[in-house]
């Protein structure tokens, strides 16, 4: 019996290696190699066509003196400052509204979720028409009730906020669902206990609901932050980074440097620096939100 068990165990191991081999190969080719190559690229100047040229830390020096590097970071911060709160408030609000025995509940949820599944390109085309200054639906509505037309995408002060609103519209569906799940998981006893203590509706919300939803809120903040740094197709199609570089996202900037101007080394440097920034910011966010609640 024991001999049989041992031989079964050994067969396990060998077959296991076969099972994980695809991933190991994949990891080496598409994760390890790119990472190492990326680090090498950081210290070189390269446009793919001509041989690589070692330039030491010149890419970093260039980055520190590059106003567009800071501008793209600033733009991303503006985006996040509008997108994240808006997302949380709208998603939570609609989730609370939906969290009751309603007719058509699933229908509402399905429609709110629809923008999530469609391609970002569809959303961008749609909003390009909504936001158009002269012909857009939004401005048509505004001018028909006597309000001035808003330069959504053509004014540097309005452009990034407009994209932030659009991004919220696209993603809020997932977070409504997440909040719904979170709300339904709050044990009823907590509310009963609070009522017994004489808590008002508002108190219940802030002292029971919000803390219990903490994990969901963290998830939203972190996912939205990563999304904000990866923002690409929206500015690429809508504004090309303008007006006056106000919608130049970090991803778009990397894309331009690499594929428009052929500065592979500099683009790789930007990529690594932005990645470190993302990880740092997300790490800090996690600590802060956990500490707050």
């Amino acid at each position, binding site marked *: 019996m024991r001999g049989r068990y041992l031989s079964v165990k050994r067969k396990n191991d060998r077959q296991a290696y076969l099972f994980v081999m695809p991933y190991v190969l994949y990891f080496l080719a598409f994760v390890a190699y790119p990472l190492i190559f990326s680090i090498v690229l950081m210290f070189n100047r390269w446009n793919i*066509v001509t041989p690589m040229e070692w330039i030491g830390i*010149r890419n970093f020096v*260039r980055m520190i003196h590059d106003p567009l590097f800071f501008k793209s970071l600033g733009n991303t911060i503006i985006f996040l400052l509008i997108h994240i709160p808006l997302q949380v408030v709208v998603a939570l609000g609609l989730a609370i509204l939906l969290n009751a025995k309603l007719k058509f509940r699933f229908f509402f949820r399905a429609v709110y979720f629809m923008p999530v599944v469609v391609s970002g390109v569809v959303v961008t085309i749609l909003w390009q028409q909504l936001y158009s200054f*002269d*012909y857009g639906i939004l401005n048509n509505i505004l001018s028909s009730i006597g309000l001035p037309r808003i330069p959504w995408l*053509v004014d540097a002060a309005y452009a990034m906020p407009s994209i932030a609103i659009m991004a919220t519209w696209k993603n809020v569906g997932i977070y409504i669902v997440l909040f719904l799940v979170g709300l339904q998981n709050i044990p009823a006893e907590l509310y009963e206990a609070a009522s017994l203590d004489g808590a008002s509706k508002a108190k219940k919300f802030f002292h029971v609901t919000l803390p219990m939803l903490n994990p969901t809120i963290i998830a939203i903040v972190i996912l939205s932050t990563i999304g904000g740094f990866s923002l690409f197709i929206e500015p690429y199609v809508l504004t090309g980074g*303008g007006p*006056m*570089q106000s919608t130049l996202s970090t991803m778009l900037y990397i894309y331009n440097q690499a594929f*428009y101007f052929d500065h592979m080394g500099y683009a790789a440097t930007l990529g690594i620096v932005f990645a470190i920034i993302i990880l740092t910011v997300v790490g800090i966010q996690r600590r802060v939100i956990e500490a707050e609640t």
Partner: protein
Amino acid sequence: MELRHAQKFFQVFLVAVLAGCGSRQETANPSSGTIELTYWPAPNIQEIQLADSLVHVWNRTHPAIHIRMQPIPVSQSTEEVLLAAIAGKTTPDICSNIWPGALHDYTQSGGLIPLDTFPDFDSVASARVPAELLKTFRSADGHCFQFPWKSNPVMMFYNKRLFREAGVDSAPRTYSEFLRDAQKVTRDTNGDGQTDIWMGERDIRPIWWQRLFDFYPFYIAASGGKTLFTANAVTYGDESAVKVFDFFQKCYSYGYFPRTFFQGGDPFLLEKKATHFAGPWEVATIEKYAPGLEFGVAPLPVPDDHQGPVYTTGDFKNISIFSTTTHPREAWEFVKFLVTAEHDLLLLEICNQIPVRGDLETNPLFASYFHRNPLMTKFAQQAPYTRGMDAVPDLKEIFDAISQEYEICAVYDRKSPAEAIRDAVDRTRSIVEWNQ
């Protein structure tokens, strides 16, 4: 056992690969002794048609040298295709869609042959091209890697009817005249509070190549023929550049140019704007899509105190021979064939594009063509007074820097022209430094 099989396989594989490489380089057909050259024209219908005819004639009259024509794939830019070909050593022998702005990229990796090493280069080139213009096509090292072929001088198209209705009787020649006429032309014609006719319109997005149709030609005109660089130094940060920025800033801030994207078609064809800066290709476009449009062609406006002829950009396309060729002499013969007077006439007839020749107005061969196409005469007259692009690296990025400043200063009026030019030049200098 396995090792031997592997070795054998490897040997066979190696031979197959080498044989494959060998046959690619071989351009002489052993059975008939003819030399075969590959020629890439530009991927548009008219030029392919022209190339077809020319190659046909050549192959008939030169049985020992056979030219094979291959059009460049349409979905990519020629520059991308050529760069990839240079990197992969799959270049043709000759290409006639060489954009001077990319010349530096092509020559940097040794992709092109210096044409001035051919003994008859000087005589052929100077017989065709005015000396002053020919100089501008040389690279920094003094060699000439491109043979000037055709140009599309950017000039001002204007809508005669819109001018007439606004009380403007001739095309404006200076900035002041332009702005004065703009005031008359730009107006609301149907009383809905929105401007319906504009003096001009430009895409307000800071796309780098858009500057090739506003800032760059205007700067060349205003500066009397200067390009961005002189002897490899950044020299465009001068009075003329500031005047150009100032001109466009006024056009936008006085409301003569719209500050929004135009949707719903081409505004010049729809007769919504009175002036349009373009090259001779626009003539064919207008005749096709807006046959009733009455239009004229004039040189670009210049600053009020301008003296001398009005220059502009030439948007040249030239011919080059690639260094992978195994028969440079024969390739050069074909290049000379492409640029004879008779074939330049075909270029005019079939493609409506201006050959880079000094004798367009004097040579009787072209007289009939210009008689039938009087508007093209304007372009022919402008042709000697054109400039191309500087053969420097990162031209795209430099124009992008200029576009950003143009956007901030001219379109959105947030910087003074002097400041904007200064910042553009600073950025250009750092781009140049980066490449050292």
